[in-house]
């Protein structure tokens, strides 16, 4: 038996709809526009409230800082979004992937590799790390467990490689990558914007993007339609690891050194950006644009709390609550609209 008839399911004979939709807006279902609307409003509220209550919040310097923070979290989160959309939940090893990439990159530079060679080696490591995890997940192993284990292993490996020391790059040839500001905008932010646009194009306009959404929406149906579910998930993990590698290169270049302690809370921040943005935890619904909004929100909130002199503990607490809260809210919205 059907459930409560949704408003769009009018009585009908033989597939003919008796009540045609009146306009384009009615074609959108709440689940399609509510999450991005919620996070956009939240960002605006935060901007206005922060501007009135916090001196130094709406200044050019602070804006630049926020943009830079958003950018790095955002790049990692864009990569993560592919994993979530494909129905593999999350990677809990983005941070550790970034760490191993950073160490390798710094070691390469310090051992006299040219910039290009160092970048290529780092890219190869990122792809390899993503491919191993993606391959395991594609074989049907739970992604959370896989990446949790991989994360620990990568962290250990990075510690061994770096001997738990700071690795100085020993050269300033790469510094422009992390410190440059073409047209007044930090390189990180250029990369963020370009990757955002690229990810939107990939997801909306390419066959691969379509497959990601279909696999996330229903892997069994995707398999039955001849789509290689394993390849799609594998690719999502490679993309995510690649994004982590980009973050690593930016941070290492900026500080001219790498260490295993350099990457703060990228995992939770990226997951928070994806979920607060309103991409469905189950996959198959969402976008990287939502993630960008989510990352902006997380960065604004973190910056606001920093300026209000909240400690690290409070900030982490609030981020955690946001993740759980947003996930619950959107979950309720989705089940209501069924």
């Amino acid at each position, binding site marked *: 038996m059907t459930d409560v008839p949704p408003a769009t399911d009018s009585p009908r004979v033989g597939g003919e709809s008796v009540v*045609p939709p009146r306009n384009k807006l009615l074609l959108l279902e709440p689940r399609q526009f509510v999450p991005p609307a919620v996070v956009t409003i939240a960002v605006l509220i935060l901007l206005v409230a922060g501007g009135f209550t916090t001196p130094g919040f709406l200044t050019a310097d602070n804006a630049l800082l926020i943009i830079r923070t958003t950018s790095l979290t955002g790049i990692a989160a864009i990569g993560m979004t592919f994993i979530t959309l494909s129905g593999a939940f999350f990677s809990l090893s983005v941070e550790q992937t970034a760490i191993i990439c950073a160490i390798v990159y710094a070691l390469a530079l310090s051992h006299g590799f040219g910039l290009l060679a160092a970048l290529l080696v780092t890219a190869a490591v990122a792809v390899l790390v993503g491919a191993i995890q993606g391959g395991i997940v594609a074989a049907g192993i739970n992604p959370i467990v896989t990446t949790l284990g991989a994360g620990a292993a990568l962290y250990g490996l990075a510690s061994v490689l770096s001997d738990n020391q700071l690795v100085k790059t020993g050269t300033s040839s790469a510094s422009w990558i992390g410190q440059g500001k073409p047209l007044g905008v930090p390189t990180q932010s250029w990369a963020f914007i370009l990757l955002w646009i690229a990810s939107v194009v990939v997801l909306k306009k390419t066959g691969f993007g379509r497959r990601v959404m279909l696999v996330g929406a229903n892997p069994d149906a995707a398999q039955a339609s001849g789509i290689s579910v394993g390849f799609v998930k594998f690719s999502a993990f490679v993309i995510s690891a690649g994004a982590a590698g980009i973050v690593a290169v930016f941070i290492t270049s900026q500080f001219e050194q790498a260490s295993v302690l350099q990457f703060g809370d990228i995992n939770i921040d990226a997951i928070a950006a994806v979920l607060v943005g309103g991409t469905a935890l189950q996959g198959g619904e969402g976008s990287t644009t939502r993630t960008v909004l989510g990352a902006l929100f997380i960065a604004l909130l973190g910056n606001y709390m920093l300026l209000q002199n909240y400690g690290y503990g409070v900030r982490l607490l609030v981020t955690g609550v946001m993740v759980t809260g947003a996930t619950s809210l959107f979950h309720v919205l989705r089940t209501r609209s069924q």
Partner: protein
Amino acid sequence: MRAPTAEPYLKVRGLSRRYGNVIALRDADFEVRLGEVMALLGENGAGKSTLVKVLAGLVAPDKGVISIAGNEVRLDSPARSREAGIAVVQQELSLVPSLSVAENLFLGGGPFSGAWSRRRLVRHAQPFLRLVGLEHVDPASPVELLAVAERQLTEIARLLARDARVLILDEPTAALSDVEITRIKRVVRALADEGRAVIYVTHRLGEVFEIADRVTVLRNGSGVPPIEVKDLTIDSLVEQMLGRRLEQMFPPHGNATGDVLLRLEEVETEGLHEPISLTLRSGEMLGLAGQLGSGAEFLLRALAGRQPFTSGDVEVGGTKLRLHSVRHAIRAGIAYCSGDRKRDGLFAIRSVSENLSAPAVKRVTQGGWIMRRREAELVRSLAGFFRVDPARLPHTVKTLSGGNQQKIALGKWMSIEPRILLVEEPTMGVDVGARAEIYAHLRRLADDGLGVIFTSSDLPEVMGLSDTIATFFRGRLIHQAAAGTMTEEEVLRDVTHPAEMQSGVAS
């Protein structure tokens, strides 16, 4: 045997309920007497489920009066409904698989208090099990060991243990095979004859004539006065449901004289107990008749590349093929529409368009890019062919009715321009109006030169739709013959207890 009391026991007058702009029930009347089986019929969206939910106390009506034995009652919670003696057997069974039959029976409070000892439970359970014809079941065995029909009966026994006077069965036979259905029907009839009022919701019109005393047909949220079953024929019943004559449920048969599309020589696959040989011609509708687990579905799955053939030859269009994977099958022009569209047929949260083009993502991309125009044309032409309202294309599939969903699940396969279409249970969970439409679509596809193979446990469907019928029983092909040469009784005998089990292929 059918002498129900004349006075209605449960009476519903002027019931209305709207959801937003959708009117689910409009001034509907309904009644049921003690001692009778009242069939409740109607197309999807006619208001059946809303009426059931109101009676179950799950949905509050906007207006209307419900009375039981002449006294007005308010059923504003499931508990109230239960106190009033109403019990609903849901489609989704609510038994706890790991608990014993007896424990399940008295879950949520039995008719006795005090400590639960295994012996007491078993002793109390037995009479209820006997009522539903489960005397052979050990009350101490876990529910998960029971067959689906037995679980369904346990569910009914559980409601009887609560002393329900009004039983509502919501499509109790939807997931069952013919033999199991017979058992359920016998029990339902016996319960009514014992003096209970039974409301029987179903899509299978045949059942109405077998067990119901009267019928209430809901149409667009309103009920017509109950009709005595003895005054009805299948045709008049269909007419009542649709509000118009259904010219014919089944399209005219085709003539299976085209080229041979598919030849199976002594193929074996897991689930089949004997090698099978079959041919399928262009334009032919081959119906594989069999109950759930008869093996016919395994043959389809192997053809779809979902499980391997362990031996034998498969020829598609004269070329020997090995169908290693779903993608091989798709490349060979074989489309497979599974019987469980929710599980692996549809992407519920994606749009109708994306669902329709899903098997053809490769066809609508060029150098990795999706060709918007090409995809839109493809999707529009499919929607046109299957009469899906183009305004629905951007909607998510989950907002569609069962019949429309089935059309999408089927229609998406036309995007790969298949030569062979495999369909498992083509009209499961589809109401009568959309059912005729799906039959017509399948026939049109066959007329366009496709070879269609479908499995079905619904006998009239096999008889009405097939050009050739192949009967299956326990992993063996029993008999294969042109549709006109087999009677319904012969097919039924083959799929339930074939006389000669040794016979392989006769054509």
